[in-house]
């Protein structure tokens, strides 16, 4: 049996279509309603409530906690202040990404790491000989993401903490209607949003409090289908969908470096030694062979292809995750790894890995589309960075 999250007693009765998804051995809702449009709309319009409990979570504590993490990840963890959260990938010795996640500095000597994959062994290996304790708290800790423009308004009803003062990628330990929680201003939607970390035993009352306070503000429980649309609009990479962990790759070509994933900003070139430092420096010097970019499919081109068979463009309602060839001048130069129709931007978007030198913003390429069982190619334009990046996310 798959495990259920601490919020399951509340989420299960809401899943109308029995649409569940496996996530790290847990089942979570793909969508609560039969059609997920409203769940997605809540992310951009009001507030969507996601159960993200299946994330792996570790507490790393001790005199060498910072040293361990700094040795492991690409960002400069020595600059992570108490109360700060850093998003970072971590690499193997060849500079290929093993996983990515967030690290919160709870105190001088205590950090919490979240990840998509189990990392207990990797943490222990990297901490060999250090004065550090590593504890997996995945099951002990429930996690909710409240994402959307009204998320702050809703949370503020319930907590004495001043959320207006909580900056992007900072967290605070406080209470929500007397339930002890940590609230981090983080998320996977590219919008204003928070993640709330709670003792699993208090998960259900936390859910109830949020739903009650959020009702007048349009709070909407939302599933992975809605989350997937939002994260593609935000241009956020997803492990096992857009890239493979270096620990799972069967062949070299299945690995990706942070530079190839366009995560350069997470790699510190000035910090002390860390996993993959030397190969990454070399890669930086010669320039990455691949980049992870956005593609905006040209509507006229798509309409033309469908017009040839007498149809209006048929658009995916759920994000796809099928590797899809991308061409330039008739030659394959990469592949798209996820894509969707953006209900907000009214554009057909994809996230793609493209080879040098074709990944520059504005480059015109072609993406394969299947039109009535035939493989065709639609024009698309390379886009760097998130497709959607509202001011409210940061301010």
């Amino acid at each position, binding site marked *: 049996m798959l495990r259920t999250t601490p919020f399951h007693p509340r989420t299960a009765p809401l899943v109308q*279509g029995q649409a569940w998804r496996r996530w790290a051995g847990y089942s979570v809702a793909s969508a609560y*309603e*039969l*059609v997920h*449009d*409203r769940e997605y*709309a809540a992310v*951009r*319009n*009001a507030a969507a409530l996601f159960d993200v409990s299946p994330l792996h979570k570790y507490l790393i504590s001790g005199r060498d906690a910072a040293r361990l993490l700094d040795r492991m990840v690409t960002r400069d963890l020595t600059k992570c202040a108490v109360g700060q959260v850093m998003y970072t990938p971590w690499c193997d010795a060849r500079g290929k990404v093993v996983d990515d996640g967030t690290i919160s500095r709870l105190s001088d000597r205590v950090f919490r790491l979240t990840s998509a994959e189990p990392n207990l062994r990797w943490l222990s290996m990297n901490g060999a000989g250090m004065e550090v304790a590593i504890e997996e708290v995945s099951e002990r800790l429930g996690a909710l993401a409240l994402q959307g423009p*009204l998320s702050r308004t809703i949370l503020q009803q319930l907590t004495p903490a001043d959320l207006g003062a909580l900056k992007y990628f900072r967290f605070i330990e406080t209470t929500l209607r007397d339930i002890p929680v940590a609230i981090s201003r983080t998320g996977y939607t590219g919008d204003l949003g928070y993640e709330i970390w709670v003792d699993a035993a208090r998960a259900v009352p936390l859910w109830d409090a949020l739903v009650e306070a959020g*009702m*007048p*503000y*349009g709070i909407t429980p939302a599933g992975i289908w809605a989350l997937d649309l939002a994260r593609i609009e935000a241009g956020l990479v997803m492990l096992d969908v857009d890239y493979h962990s270096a620990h799972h790759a069967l062949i070299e070509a299945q690995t990706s470096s942070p530079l190839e994933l366009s995560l350069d900003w997470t790699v510190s070139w000035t910090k002390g030694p860390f996993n993959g430092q030397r190969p990454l420096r070399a890669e930086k010097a010669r320039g990455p062979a691949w980049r992870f970019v956005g593609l905006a499919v040209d*509507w006229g081109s798509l309409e033309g292809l469908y017009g040839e068979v*007498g149809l*209006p*463009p048929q*658009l995916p309602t759920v994000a796809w995750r099928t590797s899809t060839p991308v061409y330039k001048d008739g030659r394959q130069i990469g592949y798209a790894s996820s894509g969707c*129709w953006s*209900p*907000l*931007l*009214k*554009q057909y978007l994809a996230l793609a890995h493209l080879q040098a030198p074709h990944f520059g913003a504005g480059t015109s390429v072609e993406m394969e589309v299947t039109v009535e069982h035939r493989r065709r190619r639609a024009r698309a334009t390379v886009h760097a960075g998130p497709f959607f990046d509202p001011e409210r996310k940061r301010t």
Partner: protein
Amino acid sequence: MTYDAILVGGGHNALVAAAYLARAGRKTLVLERRPLVGGAAVTEEVFPGFKFSVFSYVVSLLRPEIIRDLDLPRHGLQILPLESTVVPLDNGDYLGSWADPDLSRRELARHSARDAEAATLFGRLMHHMAMAVKPILGMVPPDPASLAPSDLRGLLSLGGHFRSLGSERFHALHKLMTMSSADYLDEWFEFDPLKATKSASGIIGTFLGPRSPGSAYVLLHHYMGEIDGAFRAWGFQKGGTGAISETIARAARSFGAEIRTGAAVEKVLTKGGRVTGVALGSGEEIAAPVVVSGLDPRRTFLELVDPKELPGELVDAIGKFKFRGSSGKVNLALSELPNFTCLPGFGPHLRGAMSISPSMDYLERAYDDAKYGEFSRNPYMDIVIPSLIDPGMAPPGKHVMSVFVQYAPYALNGGWTDAKREAFGDAVVDTIARYAPNIKSAILGRQVLVPPDIERITGLSEGNIFAGELALHQLFFFRPAPGWARYRTPVKGYWQCGAGTHPGGGIMGASGRLAALEILKEAGA
């Protein structure tokens, strides 16, 4: 300050036209009489804390090419889902149509298994019909009486297009263009409330009943937005329809257009059969070689310019152009949600439309009242509660309800008075209360708008929401008058871009776009 083009009125079509002109490098000025742009697509805080899409309230038809060309999502376009329609029935039951097609089919089968099957085929036919008509929406109407090469080309391509449909679809299209929506739907369905509800979109904004020939086309007009991928359904703009106008205005400004509110154009100035500029109510005159009226045909031809400047035939045709506003709007500020007896308590039905269309006779009787100069005692209503989807429209826990009502004839027997307006508002609330008895005690504020109010506030003649009826004799190369459907006027440099030109009403923007493209083409740009 000199301008290349001046837009008279800041309705959404004028804003679209301004954006296209500015995008092409024209120095463009929009002059709007009211303190806010949008015309009939405006959001106003009618009661403190309660915001309403005062007139036009949902969106589906906005042309996808306009959304892309003007990059509207970047400027604030955000359409929120309006997923269901529920019709309370007189026997206490209801008919629902939901976002999930299987759920909708099962619901309909509860009332008629036969109709549930027919609905699939009907949907396919309407898809084909909308596809058949879609190219026409993006086409400048050719003049069938003209021998000019561009008109002949247009007619030929139109003929070719219709031939390409094949006989079956052409015949279906012919029926749709000539029949009443009641007769048309009778060929498909048996469950009366279903037919009534579907036929309702055939009467909106017209002075027709569901049994009046020609109403089937309007039904198609409302299907049009569903095939384009941009929305595929009707939806709410975040912040109300006024936010769409603001979005288009922002796009226009981003291209360099200037927009002045509180600037009423009194006259379009001409000299020797050529436009020279505009004169404002304040006496200010602004010169421009191109003036584009976004107002309706009556104001464009009979008020802004001196009819003496125009051919008598055109003046005569515009004089006969039918407006006949037939709809009213009641905006309610609510302390709590309505509790419908057919679906008690809170439920997903409240996030969709509630349609008061229990039977075909009900609608036709509503029309009978209007035919003889009275407002409907039991009117057709399309009710939505935008605050459930867009919480910013009302204070937390409170709600706004938008009630589109038909019929409220412009030419009411004895004329509209404050007392009659309130009586009309009472009829609306009484009717809702039959289905949701708590409504009366929930009302914190009530705004009642009848056609003379719509006319006074938006300037739309006789309060017609489409700037002239969407009747067959007023469409395509007849809109607004034979020979003058190509956005031009007999005055050189004076153009029209409002919904009174092809293809007409709804928040579509197509008239504004086509007009701007014609203006730019003529200038050889």
